C-alpha cells in the first residue's frame, strides 16, 4: 500500500502548470488602458474598528500585479487592467488620484473619512507604486481618518507603513490572504505565500500601530460547496486569532474574464457559491472577536454568488446589513424555498460531481 504522492508539492509542478495555463488564458485579452485614469473609483460606507465610515474606494491602475505576469491567481482577472508597457509613472499615478478626488468632489457631500486604495496587485510593491508616489499619496490623504492599502504580505515593511501612520492616519494593510489553508491557497488559488507570512506581516504592522484586514476568497476552483464553506469558517477563526488582524472581508469568488475560473465555468465545472453559504459563514463566525464583512460582487448573476434568482436581492441586503451591524439575527429575516436545494447541494456535492445545481 502506498500513499498518494506528495510530488506536486516537492516539485512545484502544480504551480508551474497553473501559471502556464493562466499565462495562456491571459494572452487572450488584448485591451489596454489609459495610464492616467484609475481602473475604478466609487463611494460607499464601511465598517471599521472605529465605527462605520463613508469611504472612497480607489482601484489604482499601476500596471498590474507582478505575480499575475507570471501567471497568477486562478480567479483573478484584474490583471486585464494592465497598461501597455507594464508600468505607470509617478505623474500618471498622481493624475489618477486627482481624477478620484474629482469624482469624490462631484458625488459626495463631504470628503470621506476612509480611503481605500487597491491596485489589483500590491500598493507597497515599489515596482508598482514608487516610494515617491506612496509618500505623495499619504500626504494627499493626510486630512482623512483612516486609510487602507492593498498588498501581498511580502511587501509589508514597517517604513512603508510609517509613511501613512506618520501622517496621523489610522492605517490598515489589506492582504489577499484568500484562505488560512495553505494547501487551498497554493493548489486552488495559485498564490505562493503561506499563512505564516501573513502572520509576520500582521505582527510588523501592529508594531508600528497599523492593522491588517484579511481578504478571504470563498469557493476557489476545485472545492465543493461544503468544502468551501468549511474552509471559510476555519479561515475566519484563524484570522481572528492573529493579533493585528481586526477585520476579515470574506468574498465569494466570482467569474472574471480571462481566468481559469472562467474556463471551468464555461466547461460546466464551476459555479460561484450560494449566497446562503456566505450567510452561513457570517452567521456561524459572528461570535468571533473580529469584524467580518462580505461584498458579493455580481450577486444574483450566474457569474457571481447566487441563489435561485428569487431571493438573491433579499439575501444580499441581509449580508450588507450584517456588514454594518455584525448582527447574525439579520439572517433570520430571510428565507426561500431554495434553501432546501442549497442544503441538498451542501450535503451531497463532491468535488467530483460539481456543480450539482446551477
Amino acid at each position: 500500500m502506498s500513499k498518494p504522492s506528495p510530488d506536486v508539492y516537492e516539485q512545484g509542478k502544480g504551480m508551474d502548470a497553473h501559471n502556464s495555463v493562466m499565462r495562456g488564458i491571459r494572452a487572450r485579452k488584448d485591451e489596454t488602458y489609459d495610464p492616467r485614469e484609475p481602473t475604478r473609483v466609487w463611494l460607499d460606507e464601511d465598517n471599521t474598528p472605529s465605527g462605520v465610515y463613508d469611504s472612497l474606494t480607489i482601484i489604482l491602475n499601476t500596471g498590474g500585479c507582478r505575480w499575475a505576469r507570471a501567471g497568477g491567481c486562478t480567479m483573478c482577472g484584474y490583471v486585464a487592467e494592465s497598461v501597455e508597457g507594464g508600468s505607470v509613472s509617478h505623474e500618471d499615478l498622481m493624475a489618477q488620484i486627482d481624477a478620484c478626488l474629482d469624482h469624490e468632489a462631484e458625488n459626495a457631500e463631504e470628503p470621506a473619512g476612509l480611503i481605500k486604495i487597491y491596485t489589483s496587485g500590491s500598493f507597497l510593491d515599489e515596482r508598482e507604486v514608487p516610494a515617491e508616489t506612496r509618500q505623495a499619496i499619504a500626504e494627499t490623504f493626510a486630512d482623512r481618518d483612516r486609510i487602507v492599502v492593498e498588498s501581498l504580505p511580502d511587501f509589508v515593511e514597517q517604513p512603508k507603513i510609517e509613511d501613512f501612520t506618520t501622517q496621523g492616519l489610522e492605517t490598515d494593510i489589506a492582504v489577499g490572504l484568500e484562505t488560512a489553508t495553505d494547501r487551498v491557497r497554493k493548489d486552488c488559488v495559485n498564490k505562493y505565500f503561506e499563512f505564516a507570512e501573513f502572520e509576520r506581516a500582521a505582527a510588523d504592522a501592529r508594531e508600528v500601530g497599523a492593522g491588517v484586514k484579511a481578504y478571504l476568497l470563498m469557493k476557489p476552483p476545485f472545492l465543493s460547496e461544503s468544502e468551501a464553506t468549511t474552509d471559510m469558517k476555519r479561515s475566519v477563526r484563524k484570522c481572528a486569532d492573529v493579533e493585528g488582524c481586526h477585520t476579515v472581508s470574506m468574498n465569494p469568488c466570482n467569474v472574471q474574464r480571462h481566468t481559469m475560473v472562467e474556463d471551468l465555468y464555461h466547461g460546466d465545472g464551476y459555479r460561484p457559491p450560494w449566497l446562503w453559504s456566505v450567510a452561513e459563514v457570517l452567521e456561524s463566525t459572528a461570535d468571533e472577536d473580529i469584524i467580518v464583512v462580505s461584498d458579493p460582487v455580481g450577486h444574483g448573476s450566474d457569474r457571481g454568488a447566487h441563489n435561485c434568482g428569487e431571493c438573491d436581492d433579499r439575501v444580499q441586503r441581509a449580508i450588507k446589513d450584517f456588514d454594518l451591524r455584525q448582527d447574525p439575527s439579520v439572517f433570520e429575516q430571510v428565507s426561500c424555498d431554495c434553501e432546501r436545494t442549497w442544503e441538498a447541494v451542501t450535503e451531497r456535492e463532491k468535488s467530483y460531481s460539481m456543480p450539482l445545481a446551477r
Partner: protein
Amino acid sequence: MTDYFEVHDRDGAARVGELRLSDSLRTPAVSDDVLSDAGSLWPADRDVPEGDESALTVLPHRAFPGGTADEVQEAFAVDYPDVDYPSAAVVSPDTAADATDANADAYVLSNAQAIAGHAQAFVAAVVRTREAIPPDTALYLPGVATPANAATLAYAGIDLVDTDRAVVKGTQGKYLTTDGEQFLEDLEELPCACPACQRSIKEFDRGDCVDHNVNALRAALGTVRQRIRRGRLRDYIEGQARHEQWLTAVFRRLDQQYSYLEQRTPVLRRAEITSATEDAMRRVEIQRFAERVTQRYRCRFDNPLVIVPCSAAKPYSESQSHGQYHDAIQFRGHTLSMTSPIGVVPQELELTYPAQHYDSVVTGHWSATEKEFVADVLEAYLQRNDYPRVIAHVPGEGYRDICERVEDSLGLDFEYTVEDHPTTTESLANLASTLSDELKYGKRERQHNTLRAVADYQFGEGAGDALFEDLQIGSRYPKLRALDGDGEQLATLVAQYGVLSLTLAGARRWVESDAPTKRVEIDNFVPHGSVLAPGIVDASEDIRVGDEVVIEGPQAFAVGRAAMSGPEMVRSSRGIASSVRHVEER
C-alpha cells in the same frame, strides 16, 4: 486485479454487474448506500482509509471538473494506492488510462456535469473512459442520473449512478419521470403509484417530490437491469430515449462509434429485436448481418435467383406465404428474402441470428431510408454473386422500387412475376411457369450449401469449403449435422440461432484450415464447463460474445462459446469468459 466487481450479463455496452460487497449490489444501480468517500486532496492531505468490504471506498482524490486544462490535470494527477478492499478512483476521461495501475474496482468520472446534456461530449467521454479502464470495473457517473436518462446512461456503459440530481430536482419542485420532468405546480394529478405519491396532489410537497424522484430513479434502473438481462435494452432505448433530445442524440452518436458497440454486441441472442424505428437499421446486429451477407457469404447454387418478400412468421420457410412460393419454385431457384431492416436473407441463412429474431412494424409503406438501405444491401449482394437469371417475385410498393433501383444501378434485367400480390394464384402461377425450364437442385446440394453458407457467415469468407471439404450430412434440417468423409461429426447447426457448434474434430479442422480461427489461450489446466477470465493468457481480438472459440493450453484442447469479447477476456480478472463444450486433455 479486480476483486469486487463482476459482470454477469452483457447487452451491447450495457452490463448487469455485481458489486461484491458484504451485501452485494446489482448494477446498474444507485451507489448512495454503499459509497464511502475518503475525501478530496484539494483542501487537505488525507490518509488512505482503512476500508472494508461493506463499502466501496472512493480513494483520496483530486477531481478535475469540466473545463480543467490538460496541464493542470497532468500536474495534479493522483497516484492511487492499490488497496485490498473495494475501491474507486476518481478520474477524468484524460486521466483514466493512467489511473488503472491501482487496480480499483470502480472509476468515478469527474466531469459528469459537463457532459450530461451534451450528446457529443458525453459519448466521447464515456467511450474514452470505458476503453481506458478494465472491462470488469464499474464506471460511476456522479450527480446527473434521472429517471429519464438512466437507461441511456446504462446503454452507453455506465454502471453506477446516485440520487443526487433526483433529490436536487425534487427540492426545486421538479417531478421526474422516465418521460422527463414537470413542475409540481403544473401537475393536475400524480402520474405515479410509488409510496411517495400515495396522497392527494394538494398535500404533495417538495419533500414528497424528492422521495418520488428517488423512487422513480430506482424503478427506472430496475427496468434497465431487467432489459439488459433479456438482451433488450436497445429496443427500450429506441422508444424511451426519444423523450429527451440529447438522449436520442446519445444513442445515435453511439451508433457512429461502431467499433465500441460492435465489440460489445453478441453475435447471437435468444431475444427478439423489435424494429419499430429507423434507428433499428443502424443497430450493430443489423449492420453486422448485412456486412457478413455481402462480404462473407457466397451463393453455391447454379439456379436462378428468386427474390421474395419477407414474412412475419419466422423462420420464413415456416410461413404460409413462403410455403406457397416454395410450392411454385420447387427447388428450381435460390430464394432470397428481401426485408426491412435486415436487407436480404439467402435461404441458407434464414435461421441465422438475427434473421429469425426480428419483428418489424408492418404498414406496407417503406420509408426512403429503408429503401436506400435494402437497395444498397441487395446491390452489394448481386455484385458478389452471379446468377443466370434474377426473378423478382415482389409486390409493387417498396420492394419493386428497390429492385428497379438495383437493376438500373447494375445494368441487370430482373424478371417480374407478381400481378397485384405475390400470393395470388396468378402470381404464383407466373412464378412457377417462369422457372418451368430450370433444373431442380437436390436435397444433398441444399444441405451441403446450407452448412457451408452458415460456416462462411460465421467463420469468414471461404470457411465453408475449408472446414467441410469432404462433407456428409446427418439428421434433418434444421438440426443438420456435419460429418467428415469417415463419418466423424464436425459440427451441428443450432436451429435456434442458425450457427454451427463445433465438435473437437471440427475445432481441429478449424485450427488447421485457412479460415481465421478465434483462439483463447489458457494457462496450465484442463477446463470443465467453463473458462474463467483469470485463466486466460491471450485471446483473439475479434472474439465476440456468442462466437465459437478454440481453447488451447499446455494441458488441454477445447471448443466452446465465448461469453466475453476477446479484449474483455484479456483485460478481465473475473467472470466466465467462455463455456467449454468439449475438452480433451493433452
